[in-house]
């Protein structure tokens, strides 16, 4: 049963705001609307309930950190550290987002309409059916997918101007699991030594379509417009990039 509640976050200290959100969930709220959010940190942190949280303002750092179930929608930009060590649930950002998104993320989805900063998807991992996904509509900075150990990291490069590269340097450095899909070409010098560039298989196209269909629904985009340009696929050359470093 739907149980909607609205919380005015205007001028409320983050600790107080998060207490209010947890209290609302404990009271049975399933749909929480936040108005006046302006930089409060840790929204959704560690919450395991399957609730939805919507906001118009800009949330602060560490949105959805350790999050384990909720669906958060932000009709604005988001800041750094979103989805840190996230386990389950989804965050939809109708704007840009900052640095270090999805660090050590092991499940759930981050859907970002615009650009993202540096260090996105570092050490993302997967285990059995838990396969996290980060989809970025715009461009990304350096260290995209560094140390990546699992999951899917998708970069679309939609609506970016010609002078701006789709992704920064050190893509997938130290990568030892998971897949990065990039819509467009990336110069070889930008790729980490542990990464190989592959053609997409039928299986890849299926995965990609599945993930992007949901992304397009969330953000009101057209799937065909996205699929009209070829993708490249980056995977690690070895599951054990650092096996031959030692003497005994």
């Amino acid at each position, binding site marked *: 049963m739907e149980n909607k509640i609205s919380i005015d976050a205007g001028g409320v200290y983050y600790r107080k705001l998060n207490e209010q959100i947890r209290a609302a969930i404990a009271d049975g709220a399933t749909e929480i609307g936040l108005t006046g959010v302006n930089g409060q940190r840790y929204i959704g942190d560690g919450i395991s309930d399957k609730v939805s949280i919507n906001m118009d303002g800009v949330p602060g750092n560490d949105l959805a950190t*350790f999050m384990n179930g909720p669906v958060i929608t932000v009709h604005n930009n988001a800041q750094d550290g979103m989805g840190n*060590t996230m386990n389950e649930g989804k965050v939809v950002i109708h704007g840009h987002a900052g640095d270090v998104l999805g660090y050590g993320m092991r499940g759930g989805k981050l859907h970002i309409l615009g650009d993202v900063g540096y260090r996105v998807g570092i*050490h993302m991992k997967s285990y059995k059916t838990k396969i996290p996904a980060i989809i970025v509509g715009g461009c990304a900075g350096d260290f995209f997918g*560094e140390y990546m150990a699992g999951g899917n990291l998708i970069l679309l490069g939609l609506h970016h101007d010609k002078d701006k590269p789709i992704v920064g340097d050190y893509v997938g450095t130290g990568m030892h699991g998971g897949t990065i899909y990039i819509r467009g070409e990336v110069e070889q010098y930008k790729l980490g030594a542990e990464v190989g560039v592959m053609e997409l298989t039928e299986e890849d196209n299926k995965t990609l379509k599945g993930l992007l269909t949901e992304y397009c629904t969330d953000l009101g985009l057209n799937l065909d417009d996205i699929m009209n340009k070829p993708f490249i696929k980056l995977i690690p050359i070895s599951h054990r990039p650092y096996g031959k470093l030692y*003497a005994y």
Partner: protein
Amino acid sequence: MLRNTMPPEFKVIVDHKRCRRCKRCLQNCSFGVYSFADRVVTDSAKCVACQRCVTFCPELAIEVRENPLAFKASFNWTDVHRKNIWKQAEQSGMLLTGMGCDVDYPIYFDHMLLDACQVTNPSIDPLREPMELRTYLGRKPDTIKVESASDGKLKSKTKFEPQMKLDVPIIFSPMSYGAVSLNTHKSLVMAAREVGTVMNTGEGGLHKDLYSYGDNIIVQVASGRFGVHADYLNAGVAVDIKIGQGAKPGIGGHLPGEKIGMEISKTRMIPTGTDALSPAPHHDIYSIEDLRQLIYAIKEATNYKPVSVKIATVHNVASIASGIVRAGADILYLDGFRGGTGAAPTVIRNHVGIPIELALAAVDDRLRKEGIRNQASIVAAGSIRSSADAVKAIALGADAVAIGTAALVALGCRVCQMCYTGKCAWGICTQKPELTRRLDPEEGAQRLVNLLRSWALEIKEILGSLGVNAIESFRGSRERLRGVGLDKQTLDILGIKPAGR
């Protein structure tokens, strides 16, 4: 090309007159020294001197000796340097090792002596009088306001931050499930419950069977974030953020794919057979402000449980510590350069970091001078070998100490430094089922309980002789320490006088 020119480090000698060919040595050796061809045959080159065969030979027929090599003596070109070069010339790679630094840098604990009462101030007999070892770890208020309750009793008006209660000022240091066996984790956690202290999970998550021991567990979060999720963060009494490790400051961890079996895979939440890589830094922490962000992210996820931050002691440890306390850590865990490891490059283990004694004194000094010492408890680690080391560390300013290697030695470890091979014959640092079952958790726990009881008795005896009846009131009593054979500057850093003054 010359190959395998390494002379064996040890010689395994079997007394065939005594040997009854029971083959127990074959069963017990996990390094492949023994084979059988009419009689026991040895391959000394494979021996690591773990003493498993010697211990289990019913006839005392086996002897493991050092293999003395008559190299031309050199003060400069020691055997160690020569052997290391041979190994690297043959195998090409960083030398890997286990356990703590084994190089003969000065051990300052062995250059400090404790005081005792004589004539003018009475000592206390711990057998007849109360002696308090209880220690509370966590943030303490700046001041305490007291008021009278309606029943006339005094009551604190000040709200305390959550504290971790220990019945002895000794905790078990973080050793991950993955590096050590599940039976080792079980032994540690069962002993911690029995004694009233805590074990730290290390960075490999917590096996589901051990969640019920939550009151005696600190869960660790490291850069690889293995097995970290909301339930895990809430499983223990506190959360420890691992920034660094004394044995390998500034470098990450690497659990080889061979050690990632089914149970480890479930606990760490990564596929079997892949390497578990912990990046050197947390890539979400590049500053004190970032650390603060993670500390409070964890506090938000755990309804404000105490958060500990573990660092390796490096040159600027005092200012780093100040930053960590200001970032909101409730406990500061200092791991000296002699701290243990399951695997580390030898060059790092033996040459990076500073001793815990100096680091601890410097940190305690700095936090006091800045007026923030009360904001975090200090746990000192990095080779606490005895109750005497523990008491000296507390006198230098620690609230409690952590033991890792000492606990493993209690479980049977012979400090052979072969942890990284995954072949531990004592079932401690291995994941092979035929080896891990050698450590019975009940028996292991009992041995650890015995060790902690022994140290607790000794600490009480020392406190009694000092005329102190509570360990918490002894913390930072550097006036009760004297240095022997230390230069002026070292004495100054330690904040102690030379013996005779």
